[in-house]
Each structure stands twice: as structure tokens, then as C-alpha cells.
């Protein structure tokens, strides 16, 4: 009996019936199992059915869902049970951690109250006192400081990372045997993600539960799980141990994901491989393999029938399952990942724009402080939020500066200050050698043509009510271009960004996210700017789409000699495209230097922590990596921190002796040159922390 799996999902299908529309086949006959104490990862893009299948296990699907197949927990079917009997199981035997910790907690009850609720639902005899004690114990386990006080706080008083810890505390409250974590780290910063994954591992150790981790991020899977299942269009397309799937994938979709996602190990040296197209609509599936239209390895037989998930490589412990009719060729080695997804060529040297290296943007000692007011009847200023606190950098022609940091570090304020083209609060901004403080309004309008912006969310960045032609030509309309001029320019621009010019009459909703981002780029290029400000240009896109946009940006830079200020929180993306990197923390730049140098030899402890928090989709690397973890959250920007503003979270500070620590507390370090980078740390030379696994000298494996 002990050999039987904890959870068996058998030929599970979920359909959503829609009024007046085709039925959506969200999950189409998937089977998998979870063994006791096992860590399973389910990977897929949005819409692949990965969340729906786990909601089916919990019995939490809406009534419009029709579920068929079977789900057995400890050998007993769950599908037949009604809500009441399932409720006895939920939270006690099987518990769940949801994606968005902001909306997943009830806003009107305290955190302690909500954990107590979970405890008392399954143990009605529990005394208030015992419950309180258990709440404190749980909050301590998940690493919430001052648990006695925090238990009485409401969810909105917690940061995203802390709320997710509360969710985990709630999930482990009754010592469950199975924890389902649905994208638990997606909304969080990379340093917080690393902390939450640690807590999840700890929760698993404390309870001995099996964990199902649902994610779109192959890197998150690599260091944590035992087995991986890859989902595409409602089906499992590949399963196996994490080593098998990530290092020797046999399904072209998995290969494509691995090659298209920027990866700290390979980024900057080899170009990404875009995966064209988008997942099929689950309401109208083609007859063949659903990946066939996007698959570079497809043959005629692929479009006739959908390949089943079959076992390859024998039946032993090394057995794995793949749904591809060419899996044998991959297994035998007659077909390799490099044949299917070759790296695309960069812009050839003769087509590259020639530049002299003049400075396009010069930002000097830029400051933006927001006053902090208090008082009900009479408002008085009691301090200021130093959103940007004296930063200096420049960008040359055809150069990409990557600006990175956690959310709240001042990245967004920096670019808004530049885009306003107005006299900054303090410091100066020069564009093409012109100080923006000196501009009158007509000169400002003219200069606006030289600097344009591409925003993060392609849904929000273009007006949904205008046609593509109107959107792309809006900057030209402002400048009084004639209708025919505009039309010609729009066609040219759409061609440049890889869209069909014939589509200029269409509206944004007819395009996918990646295409919309291309429209945003086309609009930004309309005035032939010299500098593009790219605000997280790929982070809202599905992973398989990102590569195409990044490659486009690289090509545009090479052929047009554009300069970019590239703002991102994803270090792998920055690594892929940036020439120079600036790392921001609490309104300051703490490290600035050539990208190669900063990424291979980070010297500021904050940079080191950031880099080590980025997961790498290679289990061998992940397991041997040395990590530099940060404590806690970004401090509130209203807080006045004496000395180095990082010392409260600094991993280096902790291992310094008292005399050295005193210097960090007393003196604010300024940027100084250390080993070819500028670093704002007193002890950069003596820093013993080393980050492994992102070494540039390591050879790429294929």
C-alpha cells in the first residue's frame, strides 16, 4: 500500500461551457501522479491548463466547468464527492498557495484571524490560547519578524513577499500531505522570489508534504523539483526527471522554451531563438499536434493526428514520456536541438550603422524627492521620499544601458524625469548636448522627437480605440505631417518591426501581446529618435514571445544606431542586451560598469545578491550554486537610513567585524572605481562573497 502514489490524476479533462460561444477545452485528458513527499513541477505558458488542472484537484472550479476522468487521493476518487466532504479534506490534507497574495487574503480580517480560521475549521476543540500559540509558531516558521505583533495586522499592512509567507503559513497550518503552489512567486521581485522558494522548501521539510509547483519559469523549477511535467494547449507534452527535461528535452516545445528564454548562463553571447506564433485557441483546436504550427521540426504527419504521450527510453528509473512523433530521432541523436532551433544571425557588419560614439544622454546628479506630509487639519512636511537621490550616468550612440533593481528602487521615477524634458528638481539632463532645463515649449516639442518610450504592458500602452495606423502615426500628426506622408511612414515602420503593413487598418485587440509590443516600438520609431527608453519592454509578454522582441530590439540598435535606456528587473534579459549596467538601490546607483564585467565579477554585495537570486534553468548548475540571500524587504523609502542605506540587508555587513561595520553605519559610500566598475561599497576589495554559476567562462552546452 505504501507504494501507491499520494495523488493520481487519470485522464482528466476540463471543459468550460460558454454561453453563445464554443466550448473551451482547457484540459484535455492528462494523467500524472504525485508520490508521497515528492516535489513535482508543472510548467507551461498562460492558457496551457496548468492552473485549471490543479483547481480541479481542489474541487474549486466554477460550475461552468465540466470535469471528466478521475482524480484519486490515497486511492479514493475525489470527483464524486460533494463540497461538504471535500471541505474536510481541503486545508487539512491538501492545501493550496495562490499566485496573487494581495487579493488572496480577505482584506477585513487580521492575518492571525485568518490563520486561526484554518486551524479551527479542522480542529473545533482548539482553544483560543492554543490557536494563538500555533499562529505565532507558524509565522515564525515562515520567517515573519515580530510574529506576535504582525498576527494582529491586516493583509494590506504586509508587503507582497510577506503576504505570500502568510499564505504558506496558512497552507501548512494543519500539516497537509500535499501542497499545491500555483505560480507562488510570479508577482514578486527576484530577491523575494528566492526567499519564498526557500520558505516553500522549508515548509516541505517541516510537514513532509508532497509539493506541486505550478510555474511558467523553467529556472524556478530547476533548483527545486524532482520531476517536471510540461503542459501545452491543455495536454502534457513531456514529463521526466528535472535533469532529463531540462538538459536533454525530447519535445520541440520544451526545447523552444529553453532556447527562447533569456538565461544568465548563455545571455550576451548567443542570440535568443524566437518561437514564432502563439498557442492555439482552446475553443477551436486543429486536428494535429497543437504545437505543429509553431514547430520548426514539424513534418506532414504532425498535422494529421495528435501524438499521444508515450514512454521512451525504456521502463526503468530513467523512463520518461514525450508526446512527439519524432521523439525517437531526438533520443537517438539524429536530430538535435541545434538543428531545430538554430541561433539566428545578427545584423551583418556591412548593414550595421556606423557611429562616432557621441554622448546621447547625460544625466548628472539627478534628484527627485517627494515631500512627505503629515497632519490632518494643517499639513506639514515632515520629511521626503528620496525616489531618485543623485544619480549620474551617460549613454553613447548605439549603446544600451541596462538599469536594474527591485521594484521601488527608483527606476521608474528616473525615466519619467528624463521623459518630462523639464528642469529636474536638482541635477541636470542633457539630450544630444542640449540641457533640457533651457528648452522653451517649441524646442521641447522638437526634442521630444529624439527620445521616445516603449512601455511595459502592450495592452495599456496603445489606445485600444484607435487603428494601428492612427496609433503609429500619432507622433507625426503632432508634428503636422500630411496624410500621405504618414501613411507611407506607417507602412515602412510596420515592415521594420516585422508586421504586415497591410494590417495598418486593424485595431489593437486583433493582435497578440508580442505584436502589440511591436506596434509600440513602431510608434516610438516614427520620429526617428536617437534614444529609446524601454521600460520593462518584455516582462509582460509570455516567455516564448520575449525572444522575438528582444532580437528585434537588438537588430534595430545595430542597423539604426539607436541608443537604449533599458529598464528591467529581469537580469537575464538585461544581460542579453545591455552593454553597460547600472544597478539601483533606494534611489542610488550602487554599481555601474561594462555588462560583462558586472555580471561576471559583481562587486557590490547587492549586485551579488541580485545575481544569485536569478534562477538558471539547469539543475546541475542550480544545485551547486552558492547563494547570497538578502534578508527581508526593501525598506520603506520614507525611512532615513544613516550611512550606507543597504547595511540593514547587506550580507557582507553581517560578516564584517564591529570596526568595519561602524564605517558602514557612519559613512555613506560614494561610487568609486574598483576593478573597472564603479562601486558604492567601502569594502568592495575585501568582499569574500562570490557568486558562482554565472561565470562567463563556462562553455555553453547544447
Amino acid at each position, binding site marked *: 500500500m505504501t507504494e501507491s502514489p499520494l495523488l493520481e490524476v487519470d485522464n482528466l479533462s476540463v471543459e468550460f461551457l460558454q454561453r453563445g460561444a464554443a466550448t473551451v477545452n482547457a484540459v484535455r485528458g492528462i494523467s500524472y501522479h504525485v508520490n508521497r513527499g515528492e516535489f513535482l513541477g508543472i510548467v507551461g505558458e498562460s492558457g496551457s491548463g496548468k492552473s485549471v488542472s490543479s483547481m480541479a484537484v481542489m474541487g474549486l472550479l466554477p460550475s461552468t466547468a465540466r470535469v471528466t476522468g478521475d482524480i484519486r487521493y490515497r486511492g479514493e476518487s475525489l470527483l464524486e464527492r460533494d463540497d461538504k466532504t471535500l471541505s*474536510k479534506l481541503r486545508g487539512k490534507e491538501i492545501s493550496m498557495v495562490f499566485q496573487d497574495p494581495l487579493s488572496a487574503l480577505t*482584506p477585513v480580517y487580521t492575518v492571525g484571524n485568518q490563520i486561526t480560521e484554518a486551524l479551527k475549521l479542522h480542529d473545533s476543540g482548539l482553544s483560543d490560547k492554543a490557536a494563538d500559540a500555533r499562529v505565532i509558531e507558524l509565522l515564525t516558521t515562515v520567517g515573519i519578524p515580530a510574529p506576535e505583533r504582525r498576527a494582529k495586522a491586516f493583509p494590506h499592512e504586509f508587503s507582497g513577499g510577506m503576504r505570500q509567507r502568510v499564505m504558506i503559513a496558512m497552507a501548512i497550518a494543519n500539516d497537509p500531505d500535499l501542497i499545491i503552489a500555483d505560480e507562488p512567486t510570479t508577482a514578486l521581485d527576484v530577491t523575494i522570489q528566492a526567499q519564498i522558494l526557500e520558505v516553500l522548501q522549508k515548509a516541505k521539510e517541516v510537514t513532509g508534504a508532497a509539493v506541486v509547483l505550478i510555474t511558467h519559469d523553467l529556472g524556478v523549477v530547476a533548483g527545486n523539483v524532482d520531476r517536471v511535467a510540461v503542459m501545452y494547449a491543455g495536454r502534457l507534452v513531456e514529463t521526466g526527471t528535472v535533469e532529463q527535461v531540462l538538459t536533454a528535452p525530447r519535445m520541440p516545445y520544451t526545447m523552444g522554451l529553453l532556447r527562447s528564454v533569456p538565461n544568465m548562463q548563455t545571455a550576451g553571447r548567443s542570440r535568443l531563438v524566437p518561437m514564432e506564433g502563439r498557442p492555439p485557441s482552446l475553443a477551436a483546436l486543429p486536428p494535429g499536434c497543437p504545437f505543429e504550427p509553431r514547430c520548426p521540426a514539424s513534418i506532414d504527419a504532425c498535422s494529421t493526428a495528435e501524438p499521444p504521450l508515450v514512454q521512451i527510453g525504456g521502463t526503468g528509473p530513467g523512463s520518461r514520456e514525450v508526446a512527439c512523433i519524432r521523439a525517437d530521432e531526438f533520443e537517438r541523436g539524429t536530430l538535435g536541438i541545434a538543428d531545430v532551433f538554430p541561433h539566428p544571425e545578427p545584423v551583418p557588419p556591412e548593414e550595421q550603422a556606423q557611429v562616432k560614439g557621441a554622448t546621447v544622454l547625460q544625466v548628472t546628479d539627478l534628484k527627485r524627492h517627494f515631500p512627505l506630509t503629515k497632519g490632518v487639519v494643517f499639513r506639514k512636511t515632515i520629511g521626503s521620499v528620496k525616489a531618485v537621490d543623485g544619480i549620474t550616468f551617460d549613454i553613447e550612440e548605439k549603446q544600451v544601458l541596462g538599469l536594474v533593481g527591485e521594484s521601488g528602487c527608483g527606476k521608474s521615477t528616473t525615466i519619467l524625469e528624463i521623459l518630462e524634458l523639464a528642469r529636474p528638481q536638482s541635477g541636470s539632463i542633457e539630450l544630444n548636448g542640449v540641457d533640457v532645463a533651457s528648452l522653451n515649449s517649441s524646442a521641447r516639442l522638437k526634442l521630444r522627437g529624439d527620445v521616445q518610450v516603449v512601455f511595459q504592458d502592450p495592452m495599456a500602452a496603445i489606445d485600444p480605440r484607435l487603428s494601428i495606423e492612427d496609433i503609429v502615426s500619432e507622433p507625426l500628426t503632432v508634428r503636422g505631417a500630411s496624410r500621405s506622408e504618414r501613411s507611407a511612414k506607417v507602412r515602412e515602420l510596420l515592415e521594420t518591426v516585422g508586421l504586415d503593413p497591410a494590417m495598418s487598418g486593424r485595431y489593437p485587440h486583433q493582435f497578440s501581446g508580442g505584436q502589440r509590443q511591436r506596434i509600440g516600438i513602431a510608434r516610438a520609431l516614427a520620429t526617428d529618435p536617437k534614444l529609446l527608453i524601454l521600460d520593462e519592454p518584455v516582462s509582460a509578454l509570455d516567455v516564448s514571445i520575449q525572444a522575438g522582441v528582444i532580437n528585434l530590439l537588438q537588430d534595430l540598435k545595430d542597423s539604426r544606431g539607436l541608443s537604449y535606456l533599458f529598464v528591467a528587473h529581469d537580469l537575464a534579459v538585461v544581460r542579453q542586451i545591455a552593454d553597460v549596467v547600472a544597478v539601483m538601490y533606494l534611489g542610488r546607483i550602487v554599481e555601474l560598469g561594462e555588462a560583462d564585467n558586472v555580471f561576471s565579477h559583481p562587486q557590490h554585495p547587492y549586485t551579488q545578491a541580485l545575481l544569485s537570486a536569478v534562477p538558471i534553468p539547469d539543475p546541475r548548475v542550480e544545485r551547486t550554486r552558492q547563494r547570497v540571500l538578502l534578508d527581508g524587504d526593501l525598506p520603506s523609502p520614507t525611512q532615513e537610513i544613516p550611512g550606507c542605506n543597504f547595511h540593514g540587508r547587506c550580507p557582507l555587513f553581517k560578516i564584517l567585524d564591529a570596526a568595519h561595520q561602524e564605517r558602514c553605519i557612519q559613512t555613506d559610500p560614494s561610487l568609486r572605481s574598483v576593478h573597472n566598475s564603479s562601486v558604492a561599497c567601502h569594502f568592495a576589495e575585501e568582499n569574500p562573497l562570490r557568486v558562482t554559476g554565472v561565470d562567463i567562462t563556462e562553455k555553453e552546452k547544447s
Partner: protein
Amino acid sequence: MSLFLLRRFVNYVILTLVATTFSYILASIFENPAARYLGKNPRPSNETIARTLDRYGTNPNTPVLERTWHWFTQLVFHGNLGQEYDGTSVVHDMIVRSGVSLQLLLIGSILGALLGVALGVWGAVRQYKASDQTVTYLSYLILSIPVYVLGVLLMIVATKFNDVIGTNAIVFTGQYTPGTSGFWSILLDRLSHLLLPTIALMLTSAASYSRYQRNAMLDVLSADYIRTARSKGRPRNAAMIRHGVRVALIPMSTFFAYSFGLLVAGSIFLEKIFTWHGMGELALNSVNQNDINATTGSILYVAILILISSTLSQILYAALDPRVRI
């Protein structure tokens, strides 16, 4: 937090004063108190009229701003709103009449709110079932009937009812029957008079509350935290009640403030229909009588009610939603 509420309250008081003063100016411009005496037979002399109007502070020959200033200082420093055309003190009359009006307004609005919230929650949980549809269409229908028409319709029904049972079981003219004596008889008589207007007011407010509460509840039912509560082991309905209703009540506190103005108007119509001698009668009649002081007095009454309801709704909001507490 209480400081914040105090600030809001002071702001409302200022708004109320400004709005009432503004109303006094409007009334002084548009109402012509002299008209009241011109039609009399024998017509009083111009001097007499002017003297009388001067006594009331409503002589059109005095500049409007000067009269307004006089009225304003009287209000702020003496709490005096002047006299009605027949010499009654406006403040005194308002105290007597608002006692009459508030009976109807308070009972009707409280019952209406309770009934509306309950129906709204019930409808949302049973969305699209026959019972939900019935309540929905009934509330549309009631919202489409002006409250004064609803009052008349209830009177017709009551008349028929009285005819059928042969006695005057439901009485609906005035606020009480003159000459009733004895505690229980008086109480019964008052309640009987209250019945129809209260039902009319209650139905109207319950209809609008139930629509709004149903929408608020539906928003909440698809919230992630309901799913979290269920994943902890709360059965579906228990999760909806414990986590859903509590949150769905929050928007109702703002809705309360907005809807109250309409309720006040509705109660004033009903007073007129059921011939109650309340503030509604004063408000509607004073405009016909060209009685500037009484008109402004009734406007002040309405503004004070709005002031109180807005403040209450702020307090309620803070009590219900920890996110706005400071």
C-alpha cells in the same frame, strides 16, 4: 482617524452653511414676498407692506446681499432663522415639524436598508435562479414607480381593503386621529397612520439597496479570497457569508450617503401625499407662499440631514474597512 473624521465633518459643516446661504440668495431673488399682500382685499398700503416685509427681513428694496448678511449673522450668532409669514419662528416650527418627519424617515430608511441588503445578498448567492429574477424584476418595477404614485397606489389598495372588511382598519390621512386617548390607543393609532407611508418609503429604498448590494456581492463572490477560504476548508456557502458579505458591505456605506438625498426627497413627497404636517409640507408650501425664511429653513433641514448621513457613512466606512483606518 477621529481627527480625519473631524476634518471631514468640519468640511461638511462649511459646505452646509455655504449651500444654505446660497439658497437664501436664490430664494430672495426668485421669491416675491410682496405678492402675498397684493392680492388681499382690501389691499394694504405700500408702506404697510414694506414695514411688514422689513420686520421679516425680506423687503425687496433692501439689497439682497445686505439681507443675506443680516440673515447669516442672525443664524450664526443667534441660531435664529427669522419668522414665517404668519409670524411663527422658523426654528421653533422646524423643531416641531422635523419631529414628525423624522419618524417616517428613520423607520422607513432603516427598514428599507435592512430589507434591501438581505435581498441583495440572497439574490447574488442565488444568481439567475427564479427567485433572483423575481426580486430583480420587482425591484426594477418599484424603482420605476415614483414614490408619490406608490403612495397613492397604496391608498387605493387600503381603501379597497377597508371596504372589504367593512371598517376603517387602515387609516392614512394625517399623522394621527384627533381625539384619540389612552396610551395603547394612541400608539396603535400612530402606528396605523405610519403604516402606508413607511411601506412606500421602505419599498423604494429596499429596491435600490438590493440592486446595489447584489452587484457588490457579485463582485466579491468572484474574489480570490473566497477561493482561499474554500481552500482552507470552508464549504462554499459558509465562505460566501463569512468572507463575502462582510466585504460587500463596505461599498454600501458610500451608497448610503448618496441614496439618502433621494430618500429625503421621497419622504417629503410622502408627507405631502399623506397630509402630514412635517417639514415636507413646509418646504413645498413655503415656495408657494413666497416665504423666503421658511424656504431657507427647510433647505437647511435637508442640508443638515445630508450632513449627518455623510458623516455617518464616513464613520461606517472606517468601521467596516481596515484599509482606510490610519
